[in-house]
């Protein structure tokens, strides 16, 4: 089944020489055309022979000898990147990035990625070989403006020239707080923020990203920093923040469904703490103990 014909062998050799694990009809048509008139048929034929695994329309990863599924050939994030990269800007964030930074001990087969609101995707999720790619459309205001500080280009596999765009830790923390439903809930988000204290997180950058995303995110961020004992950072970055007239829910996913009497309002930030306060304290304390 796996015997490669002479042209297929050349394709595989060329990919190996260029330290690549993936190939696509759209991007590789030019050099494939030197060997075949129909690059699409060639790659399909190689996939039929299990020399490649198909991971999206016209997109494939090389099938290493002895493997039987695409999940052995490439990490899910690389497969997601292959699908997304062909259609425009993207970055991996939310729960996926929080796991990548080991800010949580969870594992998820869903890969979360931000894409531009004006992107060409007309779906919100895409099936992966062993999971799901969940797409999050972001408005221009919520799209990273400081690419160097909010995004990082990560090598997908050692010894390859395949890269993934991933949110920086700071951006991932903010994304989680903005959408707890895409980050395994507020327990996970708070735990990640608490654990990030033990890392080299740039809290001023966290504040800057929150500030750009609006007053509500500023308020949530300020409250959370205070709970984490980082009051000075909050005061430095949000000197004019006042809670007057504001009612911003801390947990946008509202997953605890507290009654109005159970919800308190933080006077300094105007945040409605729609999460049991003992839970908040407990999650933060848990990040400091096994």
């Amino acid at each position, binding site marked *: 089944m796996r015997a490669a014909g002479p042209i297929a062998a050349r394709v595989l050799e060329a990919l190996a020489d260029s330290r690549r694990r993936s190939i696509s009809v759209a991007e590789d048509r030019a050099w494939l055309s030197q060997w075949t008139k129909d690059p699409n048929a060639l790659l399909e034929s190689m996939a039929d022979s299990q020399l490649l695994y198909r991971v999206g329309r016209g997109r494939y990863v090389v099938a*290493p000898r*002895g*493997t*039987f*599924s695409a*999940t*052995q*050939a*490439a*990490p*899910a*994030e690389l497969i997601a990147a292959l699908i997304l990269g062909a259609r425009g800007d993207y970055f991996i964030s939310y729960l996926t990035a929080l*796991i*990548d930074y*080991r800010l949580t*001990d*969870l*594992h*998820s*087969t869903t890969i979360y990625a931000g894409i531009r609101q004006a992107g060409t995707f007309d779906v919100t999720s895409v099936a992966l070989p*062993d*999971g799901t790619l969940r797409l999050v459309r972001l408005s221009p205001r919520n799209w990273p403006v400081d690419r160097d500080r909010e995004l990082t280009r990560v090598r997908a*596999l*050692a010894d390859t020239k395949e890269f993934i765009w991933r949110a920086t830790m700071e951006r991932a923390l903010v994304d989680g707080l903005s959408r*707890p*439903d895409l*980050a*395994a*809930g*507020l*327990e*996970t988000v708070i735990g990640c923020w608490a654990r990030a204290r033990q890392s080299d997180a740039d809290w001023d950058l966290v504040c800057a990203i929150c500030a750009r995303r609006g007053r509500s995110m500023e308020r949530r961020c300020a409250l959370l920093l205070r709970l984490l004992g980082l009051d000075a950072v909050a005061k430095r970055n949000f000197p004019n923040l006042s809670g007057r007239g504001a009612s911003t829910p801390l947990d946008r*996913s509202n*997953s*605890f469904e*507290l009654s109005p009497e159970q919800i308190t309002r933080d006077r300094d930030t105007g945040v409605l703490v729609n999460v*049991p306060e*003992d*839970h908040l304290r*407990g*999650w933060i*304390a*848990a990040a*400091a*103990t*096994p």
Partner: protein
Amino acid sequence: MDRCGGDAVIDYPNDRAIAAAAEKHGIPAPVLIRDLVRVVEVLNLKNQDFFSARSVLAGSMGLRCFDSPRFTVYDADFSTSSDTINPPTAMKAKLAYSDDDLEIAPADLVPHDQGGTAWKSAPVCFTPVFTSLIPNEDDRSFKADVSFRGMLVDGLEVPFKLPYDLAIWDDDPAVWIMDPHETLAEKILGWGAHRQVKHYADLAYIAIVSRPGNGRLIELDYACAREVLDGKLAVMSQLQPDVYAAFPNIDALIADLLAKPQLDGAQWTEIMYLRDQRARFNPALLEVAVTHILVPGLRGG
């Protein structure tokens, strides 16, 4: 050709067997592989005489010896003493492991609390030559938490059970695990202080499988459980007075358990159960188990 390995402590399964087990149990293959690696780690420590009545496997990996269907994803918990490991940093050499198919390289042990009674090695990185089902290098690590807080009850030596059928050994090896009374106490304190869904889930499981009758897996003596809980609360209140201030005695902890739990729905979906148990272990069952079985038991009812 299904098996490989020289002086390995398990028979490493091949990729097709791993993929089949992952599919059958609804566990992502990288998570199952990380679990296999932690199993190797446990046996590695056993071979180095780490385990005894006073030096045990704790937490959810210990609970699996009582058929717990909850699959812990990343950490491995151990409880020991300075009689076994001294100084705590010496644990790094014990955790290191290598055979033809697997290499485990722990990070330095660092204190995890102010009193220096809990240490961790993170990440414990591994190179799993036996499989290609974990291509993401970020997945190739776990965390080892090592408590030196001392145990109140001797551990139990029991068969080390796997929640999946990969035939990695002929007979279940014996391993020392934390006595379930002490595990119960740790989980009650964990829920009271940290409000993490996983603790509540484990409490409910212990309650369910300790009921008398067919299917009883844990012999729970509630009088003993109260005594251990009392001792554990005293220890933890001394170590972390702020965290346990709301619980001046065990009756406060038990009363807290009686309250309807507020479980974060999103977090709940991330708790990983074996596929065939997933529907059974739902929030409603857990609440009933804790409030109608565990609490009355602890109150002597």
